[in-house]
């Protein structure tokens, strides 16, 4: 069974969100539109859209995370769900319990939705294949594979600041090899019809055959940034590097760190994004990270609305029944 089969029900509605790959464009647009409707929630005295009242959401993070786990928790709470946060690397799994045993035990506690982060690629996919139909899975990052909600909040940020994807030139810069975020972003950008997607990295940090995903690889950052509308910087994942991927931190910063002079190659109104956490002085200069073109903090805010949208869409029941054809008994005039 392929991921798209597992993610969508018979009517094409989102049941789990495991990867962007293979999802239809309309569905990605629906996620963005739904998220946009949650943005106005911030104006309310009681910041709730109580769609998940009485539901239980378990944040199951086998890898540490602050931002992602927190925004998922806030998102679930704004939807009025009950939220439990678990970091199993400190508990049962240390005692030898398998991943699926952990899941089945939590299911027995009547969990409705699992938000899963795991160091192994494919973990969320494995879980989604073993839960009963009323239980839903959202992948919050699996190994080097995918991080779909991060990609969708990045798409939301781009649309909010730049509008139509077709007119945009987007550059993704840095450690693409280890980045599940970049993989999901590339699928999202190509599905949404971005004008051009460039990837900029040293050869050692670009996956082999990356151009088959429909992107243009660059090794020279200045050339790659020429006339782009959107710059997405990636975090250099030193914790996943067991070998000589970069000569030195200083060398990497000189060649691939986003500095004001490299940023000047992009369009004057280009936006700068970063999924966080940032390594200041390694992949990004503080003058850029804190500068007027940075939308790094808005990304975090949008992340809540996008995660609410994904939760609401996977938890919503069977599709709205197609409107029964009605005979207008008295039809004339009107629209």
């Amino acid at each position, binding site marked *: 069974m392929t991921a798209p089969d597992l993610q969508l029900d018979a009517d094409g509605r989102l049941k789990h969100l495991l990867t962007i790959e293979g999802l239809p464009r309309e569905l990605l647009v629906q996620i963005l539109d739904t998220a946009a*409707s949650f943005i106005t929630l911030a*104006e309310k005295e009681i910041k709730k859209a109580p*769609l998940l009242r009485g539901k239980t959401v378990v944040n199951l993070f086998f890898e540490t995370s602050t931002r992602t786990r927190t925004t998922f928790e806030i998102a679930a709470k704004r939807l009025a769900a009950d939220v439990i946060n678990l970091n199993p690397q400190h508990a049962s799994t240390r005692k030898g319990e398998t991943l699926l045993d952990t899941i089945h035990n939590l299911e027995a506690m009547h969990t409705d939705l699992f938000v899963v982060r795991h160091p192994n690629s494919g973990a969320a996919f494995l879980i989604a294949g073993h839960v009963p139909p009323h239980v839903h899975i959202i992948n919050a990052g699996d190994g080097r594979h995918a991080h779909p909600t991060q990609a969708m909040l990045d798409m939301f940020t781009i649309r909010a600041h730049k509008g139509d994807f077709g007119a945009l030139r987007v550059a993704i810069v840095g450690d693409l090899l280890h980045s599940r975020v970049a993989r999901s972003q590339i699928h999202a950008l190509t599905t949404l019809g971005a004008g051009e997607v460039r990837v900029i990295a040293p050869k050692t940090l670009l996956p082999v055959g990356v151009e088959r995903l429909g992107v243009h690889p660059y090794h020279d950052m200045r050339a790659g940034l020429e006339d782009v509308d959107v710059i997405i910087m990636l975090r250099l994942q030193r914790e996943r590097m067991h070998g000589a991927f970069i000569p030195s931190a200083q060398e990497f910063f000189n060649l691939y760190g986003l500095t004001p002079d490299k940023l000047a190659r992009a369009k004057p109104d280009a936006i700068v994004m970063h999924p966080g956490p940032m390594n200041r002085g390694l992949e990004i200069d503080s003058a850029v990270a804190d500068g007027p073109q940075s939308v790094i903090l808005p990304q975090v805010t949008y992340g809540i609305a996008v995660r609410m949208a994904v939760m609401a869409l996977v938890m919503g029941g069977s*599709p709205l029944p197609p409107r029964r054809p009605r005979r207008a008994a*008295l039809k004339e*005039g009107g*629209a």
Partner: protein
Amino acid sequence: MTPTEAVEPLLARLAGGLQPYLERRPIMVGIHTGGVWVAERLHRRLALPEPLGTLDISFYRDDFTRAGLNPEVRGSQLPVPVADRHILLVDDVLHTGRTIRAALNEIFDYGRPASVVLAVLVERDGRELPIQADVVGRHMDLGPHQHVKLLGPEDLRLAILEDAV
């Protein structure tokens, strides 16, 4: 009823019925979609000083688990804080009362209003909750397979639709 019914006379009746409430400087709020069309006209006709608010009750529906999310959520816009204010809530058709229940819940999440008055273009039979309108354009008794629908947004007209059997 003529093939479709113009709503002008009903709007006039609603505007008249709302007169007693106007000195409290109320905030008018229409419920998407038909309720907003009606509210826009009433708001203009009554020359209300406060800007019109709109409610999208998609996030408060009681059939979400069964029916899923409305594919076209428009979002709510209440430009003026509702706390301690008098609200004129406007919808096109009052039927089961479930929409109004959801709308009241949503309004209270913006703040605690001083009062809420419900004005509807049409009230029909079929209530499932103890909710009644304060100001009504007209009453209709319809069969269980009949629906009254407001056509718009330009030339507002009412039509009776029947379920195909």
